[in-house]
């Protein structure tokens, strides 16, 4: 997500404003320390023009 944000040349604050969240929340999501709701995930995906897969998908570590 951080990569996608930097690609769009957005600061954490700017992205936060676009998705109606706080800068701290964006920072915590990027660090993997906060699990956003699907609603917020979608807002972030729309703002960064990416799919949910591209932003949040992780391979199963157990495989």
């Amino acid at each position: 997500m951080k990569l996608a944000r930097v690609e769009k040349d957005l600061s954490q604050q700017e992205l936060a404003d676009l998705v109606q969240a706080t800068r701290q929340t964006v920072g915590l999501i990027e660090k993997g320390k906060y699990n956003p709701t699907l609603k917020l995930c979608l807002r972030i995906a729309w703002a960064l023009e990416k799919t949910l897969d591209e932003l949040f998908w992780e391979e199963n570590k157990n495989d």
Partner: protein
Amino acid sequence: MIKKKFNMDERNINIARKVLSRLYIATIWMIVVDIFYRTFALRQRPDQYEDLAIIMTVNVFLLLGFLLYYGGLTLDKIKPLKVILFYIGFVVLGTIFTALKYRITDFQALIGKVVIIASICAIMVALFLIIAYLGKRRVEKEISEE
């Protein structure tokens, strides 16, 4: 209003809700401790802290009612045995409180009160079951809506 004023997002709201619910539980425990303190340290009679008893009772009813209506507790998960235990718990607590409040030592007099308490508790349990049913119907309606 508060959400906008404090610029709260979903994470802030979640944290605020967690803090509020934990403080709510802490407040209930503090009231329980206060009742024990008044009973055993200050030697107060139950009728001297009737206000707290009313607050606690109303609190429990509202808590259960809201949990049942808004789906915090679902009817599917409520087993008949749990309802019966819940009912017995209400009757026992009600009897203890009544016996202490009116200083009833006579068994016959207590039985008379137990009948009244059991009837009131039956009405309350029935009311909770109705609320649970209405809550379930509300959720089902939301699911079926397009």
